[in-house]
């Protein structure tokens, strides 16, 4: 239980501590170091030197960053090389990027407690120190090698633009020095540049991966090709968790190109010479399923269960100050509200796929994943092999959003390859992807506040009921608070008496981390509720918030700037209304103001004004891109997103029934970035969580209707 009110550190510290605990508890997480972290090809070639785990320098002066994080659009294949290049004093465009193999010792994510996992908007925060240190170490080793070679004092030398230069016109390229440098001890202490001396970090820098993404040459998982590779299409039970009772594959096996029909734990796979042959033949399968307990699920009864509670529910106190209940009970003016969030799918543009080859006592895995050692460890367990026999090569990810933290499709590919003895590329259909996701869980927030004579809240209670994803993924015990349920749960507003609690309730459907995770759930409740309090007090929602932020300068600053930029003090254009949302997440402070009009009973979002203070930035252009991205992603959920179930079957199968924002629905986004010397905050996710409440509050301003659940359809608004 935490009583910390400094929201800037709450998430990071507790998450780290708990994941370390859970890793030990579950036993399956910490795979340990099992590869040297070196490219086998590079060592064999004998021309590449590796002063430390992050940097290769070749004899021909090519510098390579070993990226410990997957590139899924968030720009780490540029921001991470920038951190290295800054201390190495080279043009970032001369740095190549290769993806690291699984090796948690070298490449684990400290902010997440150790797994080699890309998520939680952690890449830059985790890399900020260690990549600059790594670059500086290499620079010092190159200088020492040159000093030894020329028998001069290293202090008389300079490392610049890929060359070490010294007195009397001495000059050697990094590549010429790399072999000697790699034999030197890695310096324990290195001097990092003062931020005022940065030449790369903090400057708008074009992404290194863009050219490959504009001419079709970027390699995604679906593009992988191995010699002798065959293709698989997998029929899974329409009810998630169901198992194969029996099947008749004779008809499928007789179809063109089909090589085999094999059963694996998750279903029946058709393997063929082309993807289309496999997919066509799959339609000819006859499978009998044991649908299991999931066959009774629908989202309405799941929500009823969330509301009613269950004996297995676990109530976990988060924070308490004073006696909030008593204050609310005795108050003259009380505001109460409930907020409900639906199930959501991730639906990245690249459907789940992976290539696996089980051969000669080894397993090769190639494809898009957010969790390298998770893929390795889970496949090892599923196949009953030593993790060290499993290699993982990560391609570009055609979107992640949390879906590719799960490794179900990787295990399936490996099992199919083992069954047929060939390299196999498993490709899911869009329908497979949407109906076999790990969904964002539903949530219920029950909130109450007492308002004083001046309208300010004097007490507040916050109760959130949802499902723990971390329990499933990391084996977090039920009785331990899940920090990925409590993000942004404690709002920054000054309220004398408060009580926050979280209830873990298993609604029966498998759930997964979805961009911004519980920030999106908690910020919707908190920012809608403070707006409701302002309305009940008869106050302007901006002024009301500001009056409660006197002790929160970073929050107050972004909110004030956003109000200025959005023209809050002036009336919105005719027919339009504005709504505010404010949050800290991933050490990033952000305010959004949405400007909407109503058409046919539903909101059209015209403009979003965003102010973000995320401390020091590595690549401001990527920061802006991530804010734009997260707003469009969050807006899809706010306007349209809802997964429903009928007898355990997901009813949305493609983008017709699971609508997402398209260009003509995409708002103008006006971004202001606060210049700050604070430590870097994460930016891949937080903006996702704010667009929903900002739009809901704007809908209230436009219509007087308070929509307390997503999506904001005409129907849901009319019945609000």
């Amino acid at each position: 239980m935490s009583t910390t009110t400094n929201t800037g550190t709450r998430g990071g510290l507790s998450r780290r501590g708990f994941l370390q605990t859970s890793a030990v508890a579950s036993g399956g997480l910490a795979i340990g170091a099992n590869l040297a972290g070196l490219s086998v090809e590079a060592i064999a070639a004998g021309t590449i030197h590796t002063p430390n785990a992050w940097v290769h320098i070749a004899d021909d002066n090519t510098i390579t960053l070993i990226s410990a994080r997957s590139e899924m659009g968030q720009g780490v294949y540029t921001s991470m090389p920038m951190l290295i290049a800054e201390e190495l004093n080279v043009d970032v465009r001369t740095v190549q990027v290769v993806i690291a193999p699984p090796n948690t010792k070298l490449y684990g994510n400290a902010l997440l407690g150790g797994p080699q996992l890309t998520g939680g908007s952690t890449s830059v925060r985790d890399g900020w120190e260690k990549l600059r240190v790594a670059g500086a170490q290499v620079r010092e080793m190159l200088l020492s090698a040159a000093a030894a070679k020329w028998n001069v004092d290293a202090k008389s030398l300079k490392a610049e633009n890929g060359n070490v230069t010294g007195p009397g016109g001495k000059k050697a390229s990094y590549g010429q020095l790399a072999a000697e440098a790699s034999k030197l001890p890695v310096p324990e202490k290195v001097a990092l540049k003062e931020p005022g001396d940065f030449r790369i970090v903090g400057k708008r820098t074009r992404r290194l991966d863009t050219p490959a993404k504009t001419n079709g040459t970027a390699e995604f998982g679906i593009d992988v090709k191995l010699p002798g590779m065959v293709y698989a299409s997998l029929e899974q039970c329409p009810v998630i968790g169901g198992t194969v009772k029996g099947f008749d594959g004779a008809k499928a096996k007789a179809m063109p190109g089909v090589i085999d029909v094999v059963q694996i734990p998750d279903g029946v796979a058709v393997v063929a010479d082309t993807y289309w042959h496999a997919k066509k033949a799959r339609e000819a399968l006859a499978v009998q399923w044991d649908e299991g307990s999931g066959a009774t699920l629908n989202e309405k009864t799941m929500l009823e269960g969330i509301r009613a509670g269950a004996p297995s529910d676990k109530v976990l106190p988060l924070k308490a100050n004073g006696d909030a209940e008593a204050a609310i009970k005795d108050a003259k003016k009380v505001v109460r509200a409930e907020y409900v969030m639906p199930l959501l799918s991730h639906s990245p543009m690249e459907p789940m796929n992976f290539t696996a080859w089980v051969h000669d006592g080894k397993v090769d895995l190639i494809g898009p994943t957010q969790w390298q050692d998770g893929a390795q460890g889970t496949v090892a367990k599923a196949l009953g092999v030593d993790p060290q026999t499993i290699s993982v090569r990560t391609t570009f990810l055609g979107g992640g959003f949390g879906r590719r933290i799960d490794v179900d499709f990787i295990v399936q590919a490996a099992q199919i390859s083992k069954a047929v003895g060939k390299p196999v590329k498993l490709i899911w259909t869009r329908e497979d992807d949407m109906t076999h996701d790990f969904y964002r869980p539903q949530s219920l927030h029950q909130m109450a506040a007492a308002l004083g004579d001046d309208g300010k809240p004097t007490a507040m209670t916050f109760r959130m009921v949802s499902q723990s994803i971390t329990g499933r993924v990391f084996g977090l015990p039920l009785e331990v608070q899940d920090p990925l349920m409590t993000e942004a749960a404690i709002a920054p507003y000054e309220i004398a008496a408060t009580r926050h609690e979280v209830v873990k309730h298993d609604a029966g459907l498998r759930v997964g981390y979805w961009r911004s995770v519980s920030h999106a759930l908690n910020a919707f409740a908190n920012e809608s509720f403070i707006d409701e309090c302002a309305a009940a007090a008869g106050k302007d929602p901006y002024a009301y918030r500001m009056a409660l932020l006197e002790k929160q300068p970073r929050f107050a600053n972004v909110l004030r700037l956003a109000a200025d930029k959005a023209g809050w003090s002036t009336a919105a254009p005719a027919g339009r209304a504005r709504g505010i949302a404010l949050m800290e997440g991933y050490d990033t402070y952000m305010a959004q103001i949405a400007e909407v009009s109503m058409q046919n009973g539903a909101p059209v979002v015209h403009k979003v004004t965003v102010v973000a203070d995320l401390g020091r930035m590595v690549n401001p252009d990527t920061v802006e891109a991530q804010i734009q991205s997260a707003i469009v992603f969050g807006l899809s959920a706010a306007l349209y997103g809802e997964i429903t179930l009928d007898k355990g079957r997901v009813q949305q199968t493609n983008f017709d029934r699971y609508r997402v924002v398209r260009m003509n629905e995409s708002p103008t986004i006006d971004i202001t970035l606060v210049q700050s010397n604070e430590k870097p905050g994460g930016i891949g996710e937080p903006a996702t969580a704010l667009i929903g409440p900002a739009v809901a509050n704007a809908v209230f301003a436009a219509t007087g209707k308070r929509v307390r659940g997503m999506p904001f359809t005409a129907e849901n608004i009319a019945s609000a």
Partner: protein
Amino acid sequence: MSTRFSVNGRTVDAKAEADTPLLWVIRDEIGLTGTKFGCGAALCGACTVHVDGQPVRSCQTPLSAVAGRKVSTIESLSRNNTHPLQKAWIAHDVPQCGYCQSGQLMSAAALLAKNKNPSDADIDAAMSGNICRCGTYARIKAAIKTAAAEMRGARSQA
């Protein structure tokens, strides 16, 4: 039995069955993997290619429909990123994950082939069949305008 057509100016004889979607012929048989599979139902635009200059969703175009016709894929814009749209995509740093961008570029190329000065509404109309889950829409729109301006300039100089 094969189907003869041209891909990026090269004549090919595809062996796949006539009802095979063009997408999988291009990707798996011809080996051009820039064109992407997104939905299989003409809902997302990731598989957009040109057939005789018109943008089509290759996931819903049977191989038989392109017999004797000219198919152009992302690889035809240019391999070295010299097409005005590719240059503009790089200048605006449009792609994030990048998966949808081949389809976005082919839809944009079809638009600019007939309209070198598109309005916002023209761009919305031409591009709203292409989904981007990374939300790169604003940069796509800006890049199309940049490319259109270059193409207009090139034409007026010619």
